[in-house]
């Protein structure tokens, strides 16, 4: 009887042990599977699309800049006398002026830049004569672009429709382009005597909340630094000198990312118009809101409605840093950001710039420069040129523009490859959140070096030439393949005759 009881106990103990052992193996297998599954959906999760797609309160999508505030932006290094930008420094001014000369006056671009009709454009090319051949080439390339475009509509129909829809919205007249002297135009929405805020800090706090409520993902405030205000241009005024209106005291500057998946599929499948549309609308809403409270407002918005340079103002407002490709780099969305601003006479408390060591990253990264299909970005180890007194990496805006004109966007506007490939252009999932929090806090640079080693060795980057359209020698490559909803073969009655070159899920 006792023996039987013992053997029953032994058997029960054995089966319990076996259960635990087998259960342990099953649990380990399930955990590995769960890690893979949870990881995969975290990568796919649309909630990682930082920006307007998420809740405006979305706490963890914002980077806490406060520990990194500094008095002077590390990327605004003064290396010579500061000069304000000229009318001609703004690419779109030159392009629009030359377009006008061609269409209205019958001017034909030729090798001699000195024959350009507009003296302000000539002034620019007298400073950069080596850039004129690129601009000249852009006219020819645009003709080629237009001649070849329709052959590829089947492939890009949905992407171009998406872009075109936002383009139509973008070109609406809200906010209206100024048509009068700023002393009049900037006050057109002022409804009453200014309502006094409790303090500039209160005003800044509320203004930022309003920017979020108007759909903006990132917002900062800075004093208007005259060194970034264009000379000789003022919307609404045929002639203007160097004067800066007195009521332009503070700048509220904000931005949103471009929709992530199309942006990664630059060039043909991407567009800036989605983000441009959103920031433009927000600049109008912010101006109208300020007017309701009795304050003057001057919206600055894309495509080309500016009196000042947005990137340095955003740097001064602490939104991010300047980097190799000349675009603003933010900790949340990298350079995937489009900016607009409002100048106002409302007293605001300014934000300080930030030091996130992004410049160090750029020194060793160079991925954008290697990927740029027009070779417009400097590959130097350190900032290698001085522009209007500031040390920065060399950038050839004329060759960049030439590539826009030949690339596979419907309008011949925009490329965005340097934005898509940048290692800072990462969604807000857990691996990138860990990295973006740890790198700026690591004084040894180990995190940066490990990341760069991974970026350079593990990630696939199409060859720079492959980003070109077929008509200029490429294969329409993109950093990521287009998302499902932009693939016309998934929705339209088209025959798929193409292959994709770009990163994909790899399964």
């Amino acid at each position, binding site marked *: 009887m006792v023996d039987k009881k013992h053997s029953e106990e032994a058997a029960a103990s054995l089966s319990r042990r076996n259960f635990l*052992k087998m259960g342990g193996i099953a649990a380990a297998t399930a955990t590995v599977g769960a890690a893979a599954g949870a990881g995969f*959906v975290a990568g796919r999760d*649309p909630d990682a699309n930082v920006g307007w797609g998420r809740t405006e309160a979305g706490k963890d999508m914002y980077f806490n800049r406060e520990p990194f505030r500094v008095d002077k932006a590390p990327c605004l290094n003064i290396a010579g006398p500061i000069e304000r930008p000229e009318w001609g420094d703004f690419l779109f001014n030159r392009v629009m002026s030359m377009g006008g000369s061609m269409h209205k006056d019958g001017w034909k671009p030729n090798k001699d830049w000195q024959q350009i009709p507009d003296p302000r454009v000539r002034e620019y090319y007298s400073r950069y004569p080596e850039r004129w051949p690129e601009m000249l080439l852009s006219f020819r390339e645009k003709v080629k672009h237009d001649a070849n475009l329709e052959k590829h509509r089947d492939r890009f129909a949905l992407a171009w429709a998406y872009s075109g829809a936002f383009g139509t919205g973008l070109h609406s007249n809200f906010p209206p382009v100024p048509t009068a002297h700023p002393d009049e135009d900037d006050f057109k929405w002022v409804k009453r005597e200014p309502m006094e805020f409790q303090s500039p800090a209160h005003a800044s706090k509320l203004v930022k909340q309003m920017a979020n409520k108007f759909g903006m993902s990132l917002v900062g405030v800075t004093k208007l630094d005259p060194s970034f205000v264009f000379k000789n241009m003022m919307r609404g005024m045929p002639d203007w000198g160097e004067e800066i209106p007195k009521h332009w005291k503070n700048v509220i500057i904000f931005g949103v990312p471009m929709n992530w998946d199309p942006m990664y599929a630059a060039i043909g499948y991407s567009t800036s118009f989605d983000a441009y549309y959103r920031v433009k609308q927000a600049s109008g809403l912010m101006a109208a809101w300020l007017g309701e409270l009795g304050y003057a407002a001057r919206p600055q918005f894309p495509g080309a409605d500016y009196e000042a340079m947005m990137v340095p103002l955003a740097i001064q407002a602490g939104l991010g840093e300047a980097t190799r490709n000349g675009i603003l780099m933010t900790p949340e969305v990298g350079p995937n950001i489009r900016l607009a601003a409002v100048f106002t006479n409302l007293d605001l408390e300014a934000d300080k710039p930030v030091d996130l060591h992004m410049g160090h990253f750029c020194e060793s990264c160079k991925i954008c420069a290697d990927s740029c299909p027009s070779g417009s970005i400097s590959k130097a180890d350190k900032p290698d040129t001085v522009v209007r007194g500031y040390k920065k990496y060399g950038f050839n805006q004329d060759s960049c523009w030439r590539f826009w004109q030949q690339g596979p966007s419907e309008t011949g506007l925009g490329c965005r490859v340097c934005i898509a490939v940048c290692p800072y252009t990462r969604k807000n999932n857990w691996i990138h959140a860990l990295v973006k929090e740890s790198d700026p806090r690591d004084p040894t640079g180990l995190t940066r070096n490990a990341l760069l080693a991974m970026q350079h060795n593990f990630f696939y980057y199409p060859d720079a030439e492959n980003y070109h359209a077929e008509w200029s020698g490429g294969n329409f490559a993109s950093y990521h393949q287009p998302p499902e909803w932009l693939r016309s073969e998934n929705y339209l009655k088209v025959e798929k005759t193409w292959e994709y070159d770009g990163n994909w899920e790899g399964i």
Partner: protein
Amino acid sequence: MFPQSTVLDPLFWMLLGAIQVLLFAGVNQWAKEHQLGMNWWKWALAGGWWFSFVLTIAGAFTLLGENEGNAGWYFLGFAGTLLVIAGAGLLKVLLVLRDKSQQLA
């Protein structure tokens, strides 16, 4: 695992936590049978290895999920190989220490 899901996502993480208890009980049983003489630092090393292994898999698949196919597989291959070697090394150490303690006994 179930983004934006109100019910499934918390349930999933609770279940995964519960499974780790079963995992620990199972490993404990194996360790006893093989007389590994587990103590706090052996458990810490084994737990650390397991955590790194699971994190590596999750990290690699996150990259795959966000369409970084190349990076995901390379990362899994590189970090995964290192971890498998480290895991084999850890097992060897545990077995050697068991043999030593048995010899001493």
